[in-house]
């Protein structure tokens, strides 16, 4: 895959990553106020993965996410205010305020949903990929799961199904080093999640998840492969999360300077800015403008979400059951 992205594509990638970062950092602050119901699991630090994969997808391609799903939703084009309102449990949320952080879904954008069950997205995208194949479209389906999810039977079943049915399915393992508080180098046998693809007869690659261009190139190859009928593949993206497993996680299982060092040396936004400006492809002023616009967008989303109405008791059963004629 080419990394010859034009100015518009480069700016879009940066905007997606910056929006995810600003969204998550704002939630980190807002959650501490106690206004947000339920749990939130922040994606900050992992932005290059969502942005790099989703740059190749269209609305008709499906994705399924996990409990750390905000970044995937934003990169897939889900409305930022609708997401914020959903997390605040407001009626204006993309799921009417009844799903919350771990159940954000937007079928019009091909976002099948974040998911509170570890590994549960994989069978969903196998189904979406089967639907695309049966309909004869060239749509693909992508699932994002973590190193913890990589150990789930449902993920293996989905990989097996995708392989034997040659489905246009991409398994993206976002390996941030910890399943909740358990280190992946302890809990993942054979350690390289990508190696497991060989057991299903599909290609598996490991990619630097701090580098947007690396993810973009590898995901492009995997997605192109799936679109052209060559079947599923597994992309392991190695990255880190800047915050705890959930907000409030004391992270006693991490070295004190682990996140600080990674933020200072490998941050995806920092790298993207340094490299695109050094190459003369983007200017600092263009990127600063995106930063400012994103800040306004997030501020507006939070302000509106806070003042939006809550769902009412009468809304309880709406969107829950299918109404058959």
């Amino acid at each position, binding site marked *: *895959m*080419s*990394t*010859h992205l034009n100015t518009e594509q480069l700016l879009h990638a940066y905007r997606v990553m910056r929006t995810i970062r600003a969204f998550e950092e704002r939630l980190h602050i807002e959650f501490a106020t106690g206004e947000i119901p339920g749990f939130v699991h922040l994606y900050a630090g992992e932005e290059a993965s969502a942005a790099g994969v989703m740059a190749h997808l269209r609305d008709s391609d499906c994705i399924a996410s996990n409990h750390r799903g905000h970044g995937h939703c934003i990169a897939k084009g889900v409305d930022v205010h609708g997401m914020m309102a959903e997390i605040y449990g407001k009626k204006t949320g993309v799921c009417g305020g009844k799903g919350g952080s771990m159940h954000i879904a937007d079928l019009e954008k091909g976002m099948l949903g974040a998911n509170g069950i570890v590994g549960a997205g994989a069978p969903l995208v196998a189904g979406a990929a089967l639907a695309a194949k049966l309909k004869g479209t060239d749509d693909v389906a992508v699932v994002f799961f973590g190193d913890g999810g990589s150990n789930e039977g449902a993920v293996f079943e989905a990989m097996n199904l995708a392989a034997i049915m040659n489905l246009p399915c991409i398994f993206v393992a976002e390996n941030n080093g910890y399943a909740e508080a358990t280190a992946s*180098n302890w809990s993942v*046998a*054979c*350690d*390289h999640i*990508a*190696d497991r*693809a*060989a057991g299903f007869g599909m*290609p*598996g*690659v*490991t*990619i630097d998840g701090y*580098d947007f*261009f*690396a993810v*973009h*190139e*590898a995901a492009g*190859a*995997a997605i192109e*492969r799936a679109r052209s009928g060559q079947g599923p*593949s597994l992309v*392991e993206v*190695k990255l880190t999360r800047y915050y705890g497993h959930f907000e409030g996680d004391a992270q006693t299982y991490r070295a004190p300077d682990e996140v600080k060092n990674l933020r200072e040396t490998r941050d995806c936004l920092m790298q993207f800015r340094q*490299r695109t400006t*050094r*190459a*003369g*492809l983007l200017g600092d002023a263009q990127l600063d403008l995106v930063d400012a616009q994103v800040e306004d967008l997030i501020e507006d989303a939070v302000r509106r979400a806070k003042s939006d109405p809550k769902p009412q008791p009468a809304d309880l059963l709406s969107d829950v059951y299918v109404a058959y004629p």
Partner: protein
Amino acid sequence: MSHPAPTVGIIVNPASGRDLRRLTASAGLYSSTDKASAVQRLLAAFAATGIRRVLLPPDMTGIAAAVLKASNGPQAAGQRWPQLDILDMPLRQTVEDTRLAARQMLARGVALIAVLGGDGTHKAVAAEVGDIPLLTLSTGTNNAFPELREATSAGLAGGLFAAGRIPAQVGLRRNKRLLVRDPARELCEWALVEVAVSPQRFIGARALSRAEDLAEVFATFAEPHAIGLSALCGLWCPVSRHAAEGAWVRLNGQAEQALLAPLAPGLVQGCGITAAGPLAPGVAYSLSLSSGTLALDGEREIEFSEHDRPTVTLDAHGPLSIDVEAVLAFAARHRLLAVGREHPQHPAHPQC
């Protein structure tokens, strides 16, 4: 002959053999399990040749752990594996781990370092260890510098050399290298096989295997049977490991003649060749592109733009490596692996 029992290092690149070429070509996998097995085969061979201590870096992928576990098992006891010392070092999970392990082994006075990785891994070790010989084993994708060999027989050759039983003029060969320099950026990097100039602007997924991503290739040596970017020179203007000069080719899709070259496993591409020639040692060659990336031994590592002036220079100051075939031929001629009844692995020995 009696020699002090030498210490040998083993460096395994946990990340090799998993790059993009599994998606874009038909490259196979070299798993952590396979790598741990290869280290165990090396240990068996080192044991048989009198090596008593081996240094191994830690890693985050379970290779050292699997080897350590095996070293406490019955096979290790029966074969009298060397004592295994795991280096005490922090891990960044980057090439810096390889470099740090190499420096620690240098400081510990190892007689030899066995390297399991691709061309890039060998380059990273070579740049740190001066004239400590390398036993080169391929666990990468497109490897030209390490030959494809079984670890056991390679280990026998390495062990015999490290034990002082092989004359240097028989067992060692001096390799060439390419230096990529840009003084303004304080840049000085090595390549052991080739430097490729690519119009791709970013390092991205690192591997290069498409003709349109190549503008120029400089090679230290290029064998006709090579796989990877050096095959471009190998099938057009081959040059041996032993020749003083190297080779270069310039590529353009509009060229009159295209060469069918195996740029990656299962990927034979038509590559338009516009010019080629020998690469003279000691001459700083400038690049045909003003911006792009430089791939050192197959992986993009350096991004350069209009204000940079990197050059490529060939010289003969690359690493020493073990000539496995020559060592084992010498060993056969001199029956170096013959043992008497007193040896515990002699079939008539009471312990056998």
